[in-house]
């Protein structure tokens, strides 16, 4: 299959029927593989039905790349099993940690970007790619905290991981915007310096203001439409690096499928305009 992936949507159980029937060209769906790591039943049946009509991206939250220690072989085996079953177009993970000493923390947690972390993460990426027999992409996280002890800047760190492991990068433009606003750097600058050839996927999402701290703390809440500022950054990015499969993420305060589809069409149109330089 040589379908070109343009803009995709996060797949929500509430939208299965509409998603299954949607004829939009270039449409693809992203899921967290962990939600489908079951022995059988309707979840897997739904995903396989969608997969028969649309490409799927597996966007993992639990390899816990940045956690010290060995990767969990059981988790990698389950991920590999699902990938063999679904044959996803894309597989990605986060530059973060979530599972630690046998407990899963449902978030993408930060860490100091040190040489120790770099060694650990590149080893885990390599082992993941070996287990999956393919390249995966690593996503830049949102930032909320000023962490002392970073020995690497994030872009250099990601580029070094790609150099060591051959992985691709998933560039989340909303995460860049949120992190830049929270920590006080320039999102434009960050995006202008991000290594375009390594980018294999882009994420767009909505954010919200912290209920207590307001504008001084933005939260990557995925509960709103993509903000105008993030759309502007996205246009600037794809003018520079060319079109990439782009996902609209929405996890909370879900609108109906048609509303998400129209937001997705905006990205799709941008990806198909000649202004988006060929990759």
């Amino acid at each position: 299959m040589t379908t070109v992936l343009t803009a995709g949507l996060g797949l929500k159980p509430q939208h299965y029927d509409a998603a299954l029937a949607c004829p939009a060209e270039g449409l693809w769906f992203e899921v967290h593989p962990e939600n489908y790591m079951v022995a059988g039943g309707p979840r897997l049946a739904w995903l396989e039905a969608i997969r028969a009509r649309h490409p799927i991206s597996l966007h993992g939250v639990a390899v816990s790349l940045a956690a010290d220690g060995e990767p969990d072989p059981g988790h990698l085996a389950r991920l590999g099993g699902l990938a063999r079953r679904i044959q996803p177009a894309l597989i990605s993970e986060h530059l973060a940690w979530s599972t630690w000493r046998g407990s899963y923390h449902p978030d993408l947690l930060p860490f100091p970007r040190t040489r120790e972390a770099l060694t650990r993460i590149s080893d885990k990426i390599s082992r993941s790619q070996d287990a999956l027999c393919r390249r995966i992409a690593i996503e830049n996280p949102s930032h909320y905290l000023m962490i002392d002890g970073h020995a690497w800047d994030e872009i250099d760190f990601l580029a070094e991981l790609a150099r060591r492991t051959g992985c691709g990068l998933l560039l989340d433009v909303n995460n860049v915007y949120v992190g830049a606003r929270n920590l006080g750097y320039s999102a434009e600058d960050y995006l202008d310096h991000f290594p375009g050839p390594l980018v294999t996927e882009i994420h767009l999402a909505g954010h919200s203001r912290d209920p207590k701290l307001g504008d001084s703390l933005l939260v990557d809440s995925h509960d709103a439409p993509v903000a105008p500022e993030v759309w502007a950054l996205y246009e600037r990015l794809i003018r520079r690096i060319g079109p990439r499969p782009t996902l609209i993420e929405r996890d909370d305060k879900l609108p109906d499928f048609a509303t998400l589809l129209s937001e997705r069409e905006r990205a799709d149109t941008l990806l198909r305009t000649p202004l988006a330089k060929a990759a």
Partner: protein
Amino acid sequence: MDLLPPGALAQFQDAFAHALLAPGAKPASPVAALAAQPAFAVYRNTVMKGCIDALQANYPAVARLVGEEWFRAAAAVYVREALPADATLLRYGASFADFLARFEPAAELPYLPDVARLDRLWTEAHAAPDEEPLDPAAIARLTPDTLARATLHPHAAARWAWFEDAPVYTIWACNRAESVPGGDLDWRPEGALLVRPRDAVEWTPLDAAGVAFLDACAAGAPLPRAARAALGARDEADLTQLMATLLAAGAFGRMSFTSESLSVEENR
């Protein structure tokens, strides 16, 4: 060059994970300065909300019985005791029923842990391996002699339970269906059967004979022994009707047959 010594990553993660669930970080903690930043609350809130949302999704009948506010407050206590073991949050909360059984504010609702157990059985049935249910016609075709040597194996998704102290099935089923029991609730023991013969989990009441029959089948007992177990639990049980009901519900997966000699033994 790294500013942090080797082994610092694990120390950072130990301290960060601790601070996520504790009100404040220990003063000497490598994350003390981070936990003091107002933004640390984003991580605390996200982790707590993710866990509580998962429990609420996995225990809908419990949540409906006690109300969302009570449920989420109780869930927050549970989360601090038992974080998810992995990111498949559908599996989260295996010990929630046991937690409710010793959670003092829940003491007024002694049936609540068993309602939680039924919510859990629903999840197990929902995520169980796919299996074709046993065709009732396949049983009908067996000769009496073969039937006496047959073991019916419960379907991979079939779950059942007996509740001695309260009409837990009725309470659970009403809350699962978001309805209220019709008339006065008859305070008697009840059993429940959950099956997933196709995509959707289905449920039906099950009497003591049915529970004993399925327990025996799950232990590998051939039909005559399973029948004796059913009659032992309820001596007026109608075995023909029971078999027909269980087969129609899709409670069985495959059949196997014991050897001739054992069947003679069984029939004595």
